[in-house]
């Protein structure tokens, strides 16, 4: 036990005191902050100072569209061109080409429908956001014109055009709570990515460091005093503790960032309410589950990593195969949307009880809805069993593998290693 703790201490300090640890610990929150800030900035700037022309035969419609466009984004310059003919169109094309205009909207009224035929021409091939905004503006404008034709007043028209607000509520333990689905998904997304990267990073870190000790032949020295079991246990403990330290630092710095963002937001316009760090939507209980599933996932994947690292002889091989090893976690990521919206579907439940997928899938289910207690306990129980099995197999491969060099062993050879003692 003393040996395992000594080794764990060395592994922990070697990681926590390294420059890489300092860098990633500092850079990740910074990076996240930059993504948040960047997206807020992009949202503010997007479509900002565009100069558009709305061309049509129908003056009322063209003016209504202009009004909608400007109302949506006051920084937009919109000119109206009526009536418009083919000569005007060629002139508009020339102006767009000469960067005098950013684009023009060509509207042709249809005989029996209120919604006109619309063509947007601009220099960029896929000005997706502008096109999306245009569609909404045209629809709204056409409706407004139609309602006015039917003889309703402006107030009545406005009230008809108001879009409905769907409030979302969630039932937890028999009580109803208001929720924000955007917040929930955003929080779950960030946390799941963090969980995934930490499990993969620290799990494969074990594999890499086993290979490193193998190639630098440190094992031979260590084995002359410590049992292979102590070596492996020490490594898992030390690396796992380093992982927890880093996650802890991130969670603390994340909370600080959130507080900072909230104060900063107070000074900003109300526009970006749904887009800031404070809408993290992560409950304290969820943080506990986060740490629990990190520890479980880490132990499972690092045990596999240790066995795997012991059976190869170069870091390249670790890199080549690590993706295969962590692929069950990727399944959880790929299915994230499905699991978040169908947390109790048989597929979600099944995956959450399959240990290699449990950490990600069960965490997603927890983020979406409180699963039945028995499922939670069963998933943790199965996970512990799987960890025990992984450590049992890995320690046997480890014991023989760390002294084997050269070619990668075949599967039958590895099975034979299990029987050695």
């Amino acid at each position, binding site marked *: 036990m003393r040996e395992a703790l000594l080794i764990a201490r060395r592994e922990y300090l070697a990681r926590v005191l390294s420059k890489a640890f300092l860098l990633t610990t500092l850079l990740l929150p910074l990076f996240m902050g930059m993504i948040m800030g960047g997206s807020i900035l992009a949202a503010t700037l997007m479509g900002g100072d565009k100069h558009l022309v709305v061309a049509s035969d129908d003056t009322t419609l063209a003016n209504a569209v202009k009004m909608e466009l400007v109302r949506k984004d006051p920084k937009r310059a919109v000119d109206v061109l009526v009536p418009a003919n083919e000569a005007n169109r060629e002139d508009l094309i020339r102006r767009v080409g000469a960067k005098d205009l950013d684009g023009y909207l060509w509207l042709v009224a249809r005989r029996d429908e209120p919604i006109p035929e619309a063509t947007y021409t601009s220099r960029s091939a896929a000005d997706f956001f502008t096109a999306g905004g245009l569609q909404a503006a045209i629809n709204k404008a056409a409706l407004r014109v139609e309602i006015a034709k039917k003889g309703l007043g402006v107030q009545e028209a406005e009230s008809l055009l108001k879009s409905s607000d769907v409030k979302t509520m969630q039932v937890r333990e028999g009580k109803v709570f208001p929720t924000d689905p955007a917040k929930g998904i955003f929080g779950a997304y960030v946390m799941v990515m963090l969980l995934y990267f930490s499990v993969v990073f620290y799990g494969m870190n074990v594999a890499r460091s086993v290979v490193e000790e193998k190639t*630098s032949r*440190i094992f031979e*020295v260590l084995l002359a005093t410590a049992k292979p079991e102590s070596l492996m246990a020490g490594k898992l403990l030390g690396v796992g503790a380093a992982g927890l330290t880093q996650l802890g630092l991130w969670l603390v710095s994340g909370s600080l960032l959130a507080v900072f963002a909230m104060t900063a937001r107070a000074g900003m316009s109300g526009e970006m309410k749904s887009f800031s760090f404070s809408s993290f939507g992560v409950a304290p209980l969820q943080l506990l589950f986060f740490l629990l599933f990190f520890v479980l996932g880490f132990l499972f994947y690092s045990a596999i990593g240790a066995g795997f690292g012991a059976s190869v002889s170069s870091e390249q091989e670790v890199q080549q195969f690590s993706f295969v090893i962590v692929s069950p976690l990727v399944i959880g990521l790929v299915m994230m949307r499905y699991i978040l919206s169908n947390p109790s579907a048989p597929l979600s439940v099944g995956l959450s009880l399959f240990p290699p997928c449990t950490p990600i899938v069960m965490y997603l289910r927890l983020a979406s809805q409180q699963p039945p207690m028995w499922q939670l306990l069963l998933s943790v129980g199965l996970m512990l069993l799987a960890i025990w099995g992984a450590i049992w197999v890995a320690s046997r491969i480890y014991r023989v593998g760390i*002294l084997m060099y050269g070619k990668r062993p075949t599967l039958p050879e590895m099975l034979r290693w299990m029987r050695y003692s």
Partner: protein
Amino acid sequence: MREMANGALVALDRVSKSYEQKVAVKDLTLSIAPGSMYGLLGPNGAGKTSSIRMMIGITLPDSGSVTMFERPFSRESLKRVGYLPEERGLYKKMKVIDQLIFMAQLHGLDSATARTRAHAWCGRLEITDAISKKTEELSKGMQQKIQFISTLLHEPQLIIMDEPFSGLDPVNAVLLQDVLLELKRAGRAILFSTHRMDQVEKLCDSICLIHRGEAVLSGTMREVKSRYERNHVVIDFEGDASFLEHASIAEAKNYGGHAEIRLHEGADAQHLLVEATRKARIFKFDWIEPSLEEIFIRTVGGKADA
């Protein structure tokens, strides 16, 4: 056999080990007494490292037994053993002093004692400058010295070193040899493997020559050498060279004032000396015992031909 005397710090008794189809060690028996230096000799791939690994429990023998400190092998005993593997291994990014303390702690030492001893040893081996550097910043020879120190820091009674002098320059090799000789005088038992005969000849009290996993020759240096007769003579002389036709001589090369002679089996060099002094002026008469190298080549060469 004298080797099997009581009080041996480590003893292998008819130990065998095979890997897949290859026999690495076959029926090896040896033991090492306190205050002695033991040489494990053999060409590359003979089974030296395999034998050593079984001695310290890194691998287990397929058959036979290992006794350490007069008890069946147990891991607890390893706290009193210092092991220097053939393939040196140090943590590249770790500071030398931290590394030494870590290894000593694994052997049961507390960190304060380890620190004091580490400083003393680094001073003795002339690498005090290296103590706060990272291993990767050091030369190969320096790293080797550090590994050497980490083997000895916990003051083991039994020291096992696999090719301890390989890759060292002569000055540093002598420095380490002196340390080992001193430890031997202090009552420690030292086993080292090598394929360099001259080192064994100079340092060891007993040897075991391994070839293809089997001990082909073992015993104290004197015993081994006495099994091979002295039958070479080198003479430096001036004057009449006709003594080179003496009946005891099987073959002689005369370089004019310097002759190298092989005697007939069972011949007495004393008779030749009498004859030589009668004929010529003798500056040097050297009755040479066979070098270990010759014995090695004769034994192994004989086996290889068989």
